[in-house]
């Protein structure tokens, strides 16, 4: 214990002569350009495939019919509605979005008296951040679903010119597995396909074909757990 130990704490008083470091106007502080704020959805680009709902581990997303958007080939007519009581802003829904229609703005203040209004359909319920340019967008070179289509081999023109052999050579087993791996099992093409009875996408077992896991051994020990479908339930444990 020295004289310094007694006197040194009094240097704290020098802060009397400093300017405050607090933010003068905290209500209008803009978030960083890549801040993961409130959702935006380009409803014209969105096809209602429901992959965002599948990946949401909080069960925050519901697919709901929207007035003015018709079900047609390649568009289920549903749009994601997000329950902000459950959302954790992890942005997996943005990363997984097939059409890149779902993004996040960098807006982060939203005040309402009615808590039910925080369950909203982005892009359909108009919000002040709908046209915000900054915010989180999935970088194009990163995918969490395999989206690069495997190239299918074809016969060389020199060979084709004098033969009736099938030009398109199809996939090998490995390539076919990789190609099947890209399927997100949204069910949109299956709903309109003639063979939909044969390729019944809606049963959990075939929604995510076991063959897709190229590296996994086929094991009889399936876990005593529900298939991925369970995570779509709002109250997934």
């Amino acid at each position, binding site marked *: 214990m020295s004289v310094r130990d007694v006197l040194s704490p009094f240097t704290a008083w020098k802060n009397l002569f400093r300017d405050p470091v607090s933010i003068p106007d905290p209500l209008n502080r803009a978030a*960083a350009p890549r801040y993961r704020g409130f959702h935006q959805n380009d409803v014209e680009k969105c096809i209602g495939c429901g992959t965002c709902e599948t990946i949401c*581990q909080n069960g925050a997303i519901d697919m709901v019919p929207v007035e003015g958007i018709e079900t047609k080939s390649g568009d289920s007519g549903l749009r994601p509605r997000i329950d902000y009581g459950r959302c954790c802003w992890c942005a*997996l829904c943005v990363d997984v979005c097939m059409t890149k229609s779902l993004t996040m703005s960098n807006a982060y203040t939203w005040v309402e008296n009615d808590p039910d209004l925080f369950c909203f359909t982005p892009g359909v319920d108009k919000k002040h951040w709908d046209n915000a340019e900054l915010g989180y967008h999935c970088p194009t070179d990163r995918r969490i679903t395999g989206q690069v289509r495997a190239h299918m081999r074809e016969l060389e023109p020199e060979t084709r010119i004098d033969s009736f052999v099938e030009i398109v050579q199809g996939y090998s087993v490995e390539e076919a597995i990789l190609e099947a791996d890209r399927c997100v099992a949204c069910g949109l093409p299956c709903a309109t396909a003639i063979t939909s009875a044969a390729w019944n996408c809606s049963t959990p077992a075939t929604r995510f074909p076991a063959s897709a896991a190229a590296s996994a051994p086929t094991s009889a020990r399936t876990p005593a757990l529900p298939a991925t479908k369970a995570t779509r339930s709002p109250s997934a444990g």
Partner: protein
Amino acid sequence: MALYTPDRSQYPAKKADGTLDIDLASGKYLKLWQGPNHPGITGNMSVELTVCGDEVVEGKTHVGYLHRGFEKLMERRSFIQCFPIVCRICVPEPDFNEYCYAAAVEDLSGIQSPERANWMRALILEMGRINSYLMYLGGQAGALGLGVIGQWTTYARDLMLDRFEEMTGARIYHMFILPGGVRDGLPDGFDQRMEETLREIESTMKDVHDVMFHNAVFKKRTVGQGVIDPAWLDQYGVTGPNARAAGVAKDVRRDQPYLVYRELEFEPVIGHDSDIYTRSDVRRRDLLMSVDLIRQILAKMPRSGPLIADMPSMLHWKIPRGETYVRGECSRGEYGYYLVTDGSGFPRRVNVRGPSYTHAMALLERMIVNINISDVAALMVSLHTYPPEIER
């Protein structure tokens, strides 16, 4: 070095099963709950004290106020769906959860995260370490009545949160370290803003040093108080600054270098007196070392290249049967994930090894005996425990 002495002459005898024979009806003893709502407690925890006069006879740690069952929840989430929830296991320093989980999944699936992603990860982890230490210094000073330190360190931490915000897109739960890599690279002009932040933190730390560490009251109450005997380190699984303050240079970054720590120059910070003062000082110096590490990382890290490995489709990603353990050196000690997979799309078992698990339970219960009630808060904070990683 004043060591803990088990002098129980005026205290109750031990019963045959090793517990104390405390007769509350005699009026000699009093039960006192410190926490869960108490300014002198770290997070959602409480200590049940039995006191005789001013002196603690027995202390029992109670946790469970923030139990969310993450380990169980992860068993019904696919590997990518676990990624947003792991960070919630430790609020002030969430990145170690993300890193350890990602590294464990990569280890079992045979994926290698790219070089640039490893540098980004190391940068995030060091930034998180600074945040965690700043929060700790405020708490340690606050536990002894020095409220102003907490205000200064909160300011410095806020600047670091700004850097986190522009880099990861979030302030507290960054959700940035995906299995396979990281989400994004550095934003434009980040280096310069980071350098300004680091200078501001250094200047704050100088003030903290003057007011907290050269302080007669602080020294009087912490020097020689709450000593961890080096012999306890293995018995109680003590790691991190708690072990380094006892003179043992236990540091996973040096012992089993992960990420890019082989390419960085640093020496584990150690102290020798193993009391509360030394532990605070080790953490202060460790913080300054992290500042230096961030500068080294920014100077050496590659600025181009892939940020994430080629991954299978994460919607139906299955990992072959196996088990692994991955560890890192967080601000409190060894943080680790034990992951067991069974060939399905879900983890079979995840176990989180948080350093607080041993520090706040067995070690604290041992150290709390024979100290004054007014020192309990300082002792508890000096072990730097975060209850959520005890109960997960």
